[in-house]
């Protein structure tokens, strides 16, 4: 049996009285596009924060390819090859598109030269222009990232994920706020990346999740509610109750009718 790409053991994170991630044990085998879904407040983003090192767990372990990475600082986890995007699109607003890609490429270097010209590294320059072509932003290379449209920022985020050569990519609601056309473009890119990279995606857009995910984990109140493929999940009664909230909605409808 091969080692799973990501494993959590009894992972727990509390914020005051709230347990955001509750004794969560999760095993994600490699080679699949994995989706995590769940209602708001289920602890999905907290789980990403624990894996990527932005938060430390109160208890439990995170293992990446069998290696314990619990409590490592974010930059070291990033250097191991776990890269992620943030729920709120976040790039370096005052740097240009090309510079955003460039610094992401160089970010994992331990030594950053203090006095050499940044533009002088031919390998980095070549890689930046190749990535610009891949995401179709070559024409906007000199634009400040803060002036880009929302969809272009999302593409730039994907470009930054690509150029960082991830081994495991965590995408936090990558299509959130996108137009249908932009979503389609992003989904195609994600599918293409998933052929070579292990990807875990948090997503609210159900058609997107059911369309691209090989395996789905449903979280509710910090714990796993169900896991399986798209068909199993969509037919699971508990998932319907917790996530889709069908009965409550029907209550509202009945109330409205009876009123």
């Amino acid at each position: 049996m091969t080692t799973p790409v990501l494993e959590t053991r009894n992972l727990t994170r509390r914020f005051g009285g709230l347990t955001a991630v509750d004794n969560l044990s999760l095993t994600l085998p490699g080679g699949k596009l994995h989706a995590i879904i769940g209602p708001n407040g289920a602890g999905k983003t907290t789980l990403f924060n624990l894996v990527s090192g932005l938060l430390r767990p109160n208890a439990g372990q995170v293992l990446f390819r069998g290696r314990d990475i619990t409590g490592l600082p974010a930059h070291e986890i990033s250097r191991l090859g776990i890269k992620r995007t943030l729920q709120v699109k976040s790039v370096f607003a005052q740097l240009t598109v090309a510079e955003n890609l460039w610094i992401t490429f160089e970010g994992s270097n331990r030594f950053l030269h203090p006095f050499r010209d940044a533009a002088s590294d031919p390998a980095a320059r070549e890689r930046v222009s190749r990535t610009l072509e891949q995401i179709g932003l070559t024409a906007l290379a000199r634009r400040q990232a803060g002036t880009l449209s929302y969809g272009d920022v999302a593409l730039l985020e994907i470009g930054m994920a690509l150029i960082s050569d991830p081994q495991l990519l965590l995408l936090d609601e990558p299509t959130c706020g996108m137009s249908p056309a932009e979503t389609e473009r992003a989904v195609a890119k994600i599918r293409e990346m998933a052929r070579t990279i292990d990807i875990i995606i948090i997503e609210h857009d159900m058609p997107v999740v059911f369309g691209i995910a090989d395996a789905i984990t449903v979280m509710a109140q910090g714990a796993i509610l169900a896991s399986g493929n798209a068909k199993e999940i969509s037919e699971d009664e508990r998932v319907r109750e917790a996530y889709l909230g069908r009965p409550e909605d029907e209550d509202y409808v009945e109330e409205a009718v009876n009123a």
Partner: protein
Amino acid sequence: MSAATAINRVMMAAFAAFLVSVPWSVPALINSFWVSVIAEILIWSLFAASVNLLFGYVGLLSFGQALYFGFGMYGVAIGISDLGLSFWPAFGLGIVASMAMALVTGIFAVRLTWHYFAIITVVFSLIFYFLALSNKWLTGGDDGINFTLPPTFTFGGTKWALTDPTFQYFFILTTVALCFWLMHRLIGSPLGKAFLAIRDNDVRASLIGLNVYLLRLIAFVLAGFLAGVAGALFAFFGRYASATYMFYQVSGEGVVWAIVGGAGTLFGPIIGTTLFIVIREVVSTHWEHHSLIVGLMAILVVILAPKGLVGLWRAALEHFDQDRASKPVSQTLRVEP
């Protein structure tokens, strides 16, 4: 090359030519007193550049840079008067002392950001200000330490010392220009780009593998270097060191100069420092409340020109370029001028 770039280059050349001609042109046009005012402006520009490196390029607002300026001054003064060092070792001692102090305080300070960072830098500078005041045996307290200048270079029988005003001016100009050139290289380098990334978005920076804490500490020590060189030069310039230059009001002036001139631009601190020192020199002889003008100008600039005077100038040039309907220039990776 666009018209804006051309205009900037011509102005830079004129500015450099003026600086080199100061010891002859200024006495002829005004009087020789202004030569030393300009030397002082150069030194304080370097101090403002230290604030600017932290605030404009890394996003850390320090209200305590006077501490490292003061350590540069005392390193020189104590080195010469107590340890009997000659010129260069004393200069070196001043710079090393301020960088070491920046490292020690930075280890604690750069764990924090924003107002917490600003507060802790003030606290550190106040602690050492009062320590310097009370330890009279070492620092001379309020009176400070006066010392006699050793020669800068000695070749056989000939000596060059800062007692020659022209030599002193060029020594200061060369040192300050060298520091600004180093900062220019730094801003365009991989390390400089990493600083900018942290300024823009520190969480994202850590997620792409940048060690945010270490990089902020490096920036803090480099800013300590700039402030230390400025302090050491100022000690040579005034032939003394005093605790009054470690007070937080001095730090605050550096912040105002950098922000009004344009934080995040190489020349902003020079513009801001020049403006305010000229105002001080011209107005203070007629009117004792000249700091009112300083305050008013600072408020106006912060409200009306968030990127300072250099930002206004750039916007004007851009406008000019667009009016000429010239195509956007192709550039390599952006390097701050």
